[in-house]
């Protein structure tokens, strides 16, 4: 690892500033906020997956406390369109009006002095419906036989895309393997669920909405659209937010409903998402289906892949990312970190009677990594090659950088083959292969698996404008203000909900201006105080807001030099800025003295002083906005119990290249957390549905998350290849950990079970699925032996 430029600057693992309050339980989350006259809201949610509403019966005594779609006629539905050709638009009603399209869809809003009383009211509202057959399976949903979710559509497909590049070359393949691969639905499960408090401020004539969101400005725009209020009458505040992972990157119907209600009843109203609502009602993620074929020549030359991918988008297109982001990403990033000549990918985004899906940490990368890496291992087995030897042949090489891949993704920098070699050395593949030959005394089977990924991050205008979704990131801004006593306030529109930005942005400012990080205050998460931003998602904040902070500090430095030179009676060319001081040929003046002069002794300022003073707003974009490409290799060994289907992770190696690391400790934290979530995807988490569209994982006893004992010691190694396009060479790394674990763990399990001929192709890999796969493989073997005997007899 590189040496930090100073004990507090870029590259230093300084402890997190925010931990002083968060580790003492003094954070202020939405649920911690107190308001006079607050009323609590509970939603009556649909118990049906697909139904036509006949009537909603509200007891007469409760009429003033129950609100339905009839009351909200002035409110516009949530509409998240995509500019991609053929995209079908869905209108998501704030409260279900004529039709219900998923279990958990809000039907009535009940308000009372406490949540318990609001739930009591909800229990007395009767919903009468005519049930309709639901679309539960996305593949069925694609067929003509499926009932229609949105009547105006001719089918249930939000969007179909198709890409074909040089598929002729597949004819040269000696071998091809086809696999049907599925990643099941998940819930993001941040520590803190969603939460909203809304009130109307009569003095400011402004709606104020506190929300557990990762994009307050986008929520403000969405609320403005739905409520018909101009932006200046809407303020959105994200206080402390306990993790997002995409679940807080959505405009909720509940945010719109509560906003309307607060204006209607003239009191602050609150809704706190409970775990059941989180699991079944607001949004899920990750549900993909792949039919994927890999092609190769006998000598191991990889020719490419063809794929048909289906994404279960749920009932509505969620705002702002839309129902197409996931599938569009599948098509564009399925090729992963590899260089190969032929590619075809067709995608379907299908509407089903389930809650909408959202991009979850890693977005589609986790799914495509799973699909591609499993097929690569299947090919390697077919070729009798070691999986790493096979991949080394067609990984993008450092001398190719910058490299445009088959889908025109522009890789900025990196040494992928080196990362793979490092991982293989750390996991000690030779020792493992020997151990496999000896077998285990306890009868378990040992396996090795790896997965390699890249993570396009902080991609900007050109990429998102192409998708035409409601939100296109532009230049990211920072307002930086030096205070009269020499402190620094940074205002950014990104929103830290676990990313440690209060620390890392301060480190950037420290590197630029030499101010002690204790004197740097990050102001974020409030539309009243911060520049407009699409928020924190897509591993973008360290690159984009970090770049903006640097740009603003750069401008401040120029102004400090100008005033400092004047105070030193030295020509501007003869002064320099160093560690919080302007130094001239015959003296020095501190940042504090300059600040004091600007604010409190303006009579001492030069006549030509910049009237903007010590407050600047600068915008930043990367040299190229095609994104940074962080990447990594996950190499895993597992032990599988073929009797019980139990999986133990024996060793887990991660080689990660996030470019220049601003705070290596924070990066490791991101990798740990992401990998834990990836282990959840691999082995535990599944939001199952029954035939009638009832979600089966409505509590944490049915929806399993990995706990501390399920996450092994991760051994993390770093490469630091700077991005040529970002301010300090930093790359986005926030999602990296969550991408590769399902693929690496599945490959390890499949390696362990290769003697059985069993292959696991569906996440999560449960003990049951392992035992079924072993059974299937054994009965296939038995019947082929029987067939062979019949032939020979």
């Amino acid at each position: 690892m590189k040496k930090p430029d100073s004990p507090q600057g870029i590259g230093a693992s300084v402890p997190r500033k925010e931990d002083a309050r968060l580790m003492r339980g003094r954070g202020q989350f939405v649920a911690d906020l107190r308001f006079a006259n607050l009323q609590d809201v509970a939603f009556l949610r649909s118990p049906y997956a697909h139904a036509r509403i006949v009537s909603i019966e509200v007891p007469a005594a409760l009429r003033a406390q129950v609100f339905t779609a009839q009351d909200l006629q002035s409110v516009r539905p949530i509409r998240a369109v995509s500019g991609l050709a053929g995209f079908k638009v869905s209108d998501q009603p704030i409260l279900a009006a004529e039709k219900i399209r998923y279990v958990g869809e809000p039907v009535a809003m009940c308000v009372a002095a406490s949540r318990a009383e609001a739930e009591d009211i909800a229990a007395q509202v009767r919903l009468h419906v005519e049930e309709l057959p639901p679309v539960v399976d996305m593949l069925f949903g694609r067929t003509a036989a499926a009932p229609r979710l949105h009547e105006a559509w001719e089918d249930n497909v939000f969007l179909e895309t198709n890409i074909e590049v040089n598929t002729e070359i597949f004819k040269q393949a000696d071998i091809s393997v086809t696999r049907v691969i599925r990643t099941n639905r998940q819930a993001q499960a941040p520590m803190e669920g969603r939460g909203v408090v809304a009130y109307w401020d009569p003095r400011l004539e402004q709606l104020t909405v506190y929300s557990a969101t990762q994009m307050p400005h986008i929520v403000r725009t969405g609320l403005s659209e739905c409520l018909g209020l101009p932006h200046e009458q809407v303020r959105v505040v994200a206080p402390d937010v306990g993790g997002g992972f995409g679940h807080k990157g959505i405009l909720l119907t509940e945010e719109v409903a509560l906003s309307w209600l607060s204006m209607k009843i003239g009191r602050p109203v609150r809704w706190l998402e409970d775990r059941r609502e989180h699991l079944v009602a607001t949004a899920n993620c990750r549900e993909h289906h792949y039919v994927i074929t890999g092609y190769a020549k006998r000598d191991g030359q990889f020719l490419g892949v063809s794929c048909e991918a289906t994404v279960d988008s749920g009932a509505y297109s969620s705002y702002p990312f839309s129902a197409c982001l996931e599938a569009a990403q599948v098509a564009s990033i399925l090729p992963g970190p590899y260089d190969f000549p032929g590619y075809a990918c067709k995608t379907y985004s299908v509407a089903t009677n389930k809650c909408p899906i959202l991009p979850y940490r890693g977005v589609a990368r986790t799914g495509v990594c799973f699909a591609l890496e499993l097929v690569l291992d299947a090919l390697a087995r077919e070729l009798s090659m070691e999986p790493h030897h096979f991949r080394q042949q067609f990984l993008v090489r450092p001398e190719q950088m910058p490299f445009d891949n088959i889908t025109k993704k522009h890789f900025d920098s990196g040494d992928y083959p080196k990362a793979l070699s490092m991982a293989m050395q750390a996991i000690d593949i030779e020792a493992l292969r020997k151990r496999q030959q000896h077998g285990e005394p306890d009868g378990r089977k040992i396996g090795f698996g790896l997965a390699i990924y890249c993570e396009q991050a902080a991609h900007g205008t050109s990429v998102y404008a192409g998708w035409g979704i409601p939100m296109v990131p532009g230049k990211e801004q920072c307002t930086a203000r030096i205070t009269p006593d020499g402190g620094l306030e940074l205002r950014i529109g990104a929103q830290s909900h676990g990313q440690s930005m209060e620390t890392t942005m301060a480190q950037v400012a420290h590197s630029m201006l030499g101010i002690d990080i204790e004197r740097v205050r990050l102001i974020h998460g409030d539309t009243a105080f911060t520049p407009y931003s699409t928020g924190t998602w897509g591993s973008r904040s360290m690159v984009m807001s970090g770049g903006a902070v640097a740009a603003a500090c750069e401008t401040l430095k120029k102004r400090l030099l100008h005033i400092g030179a004047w105070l030193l009676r030295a020509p501007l060319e003869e002064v320099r800025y160093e560690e919080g001081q302007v130094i001239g040929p015959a003296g020095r003046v501190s940042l504090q003295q300059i600040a004091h002069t600007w604010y409190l002794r303006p009579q001492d300022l030069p006549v030509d002083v910049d009237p903007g003073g010590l407050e600047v707003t600068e915008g930043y974009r990367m040299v190229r906005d095609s994104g940074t490409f962080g990447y990594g290799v996950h190499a895993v060994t597992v032990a599988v119990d073929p009797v019980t289907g139990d999986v133990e992770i024996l060793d887990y190696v991660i080689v990660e290249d996030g470019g220049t690391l601003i705070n290596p400790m924070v990066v490791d934290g991101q990798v740990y957390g992401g990998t834990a979530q990836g282990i959840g995807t691999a082995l535990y988490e599944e939001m199952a549905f029954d035939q009638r569209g009832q979600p089966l994982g409505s509590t944490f006893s049915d929806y399993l998350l990995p706990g501390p004992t399920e996450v092994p010691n991760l051994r993390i190694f770093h490469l630091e290849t700077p991005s040529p396009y970002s301010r300090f060479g930093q790359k986005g790394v926030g999602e990296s950990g969550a991408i590769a674990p399902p693929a690496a763990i599945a490959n390890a399990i499949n390696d362990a079970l290769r003697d059985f001929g069993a292959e696991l192709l569906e996440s999560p890999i449960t003990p049951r699925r392992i035992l079924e796969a072993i059974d299937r493989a054994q009965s296939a073997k038995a019947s082929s032996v029987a067939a062979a005997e019949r032939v020979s007899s």
Partner: protein
Amino acid sequence: MKPAPFSYEQISQAQQVSASLLRSDASVKIIAGGQSLGPMLNLRLAQPTHLIDITRLAALKTVQSSSGSVTLGACVTHANIEDGCVPGRLGEILSEIARAIAYRAVRNRGTLGGSLAHADPSADWITTLTALDAELSVRRADGQRWMKIAGAMSGPFDIGLGPGEWIDAVRIPEFASGSAWGYTKIARKTGEFAHAMVAFLHRPAQSSLRVVFGATESAPIVIDHSDSILAGADLESLKALAHQRLLQAGLNDPIDNRVRLAVMERAIRKAQSGRRA
């Protein structure tokens, strides 16, 4: 996720419990640690109108050893047991069982009596105390009776308590000298309810063995047999017998049963390799 309205009462006299349970003007439930009832209240799966809290009854937190048995009050927590409130080899066995129940936070509050009264088929005490041949002290308005746990469950979440009846203590026979014990369960992750569990007790002095399958979605399946069945080099005949009993109980998923039998085998191996009392 808030409970339906209920009233709450702390009971200070054991005699009041049965009377409260028999109230005709309320649906009454006992709460002790609340580790199962709490979530059920919040999910409104249980909607009693009155809760009586028995954790202030000091007698329910005692552990008494007498010749041949140890008696634990119903409000002794899993954590108390984990931390060794029961002496001797039996205490070690119980401590080991307790240590694998859910998480320490749950064990700090969850009680032995509460777990048995709740009678979740996948809970640890129902299965292990069946194997150890424990008895429940069942109190009612006009007296008290002892009820063996083995055979008490008539279905899931039903330990066979009548109106006004409640559990105030559990009596567990001393662990006989020379006996061998093995308990194995497998769960998707640490702290989760098991999807297969077997407790095994071999008493050479009586030439008998007992195998108890838990996590059956209903009452545990108990196999009492002469230990001659262990005489063979392998366990095939015992496995065949057990398999038959699983099928008779309506458990016919082949994969689940294969896992259950493997767990049985592991419990037996554990008993055979473990030290004897």
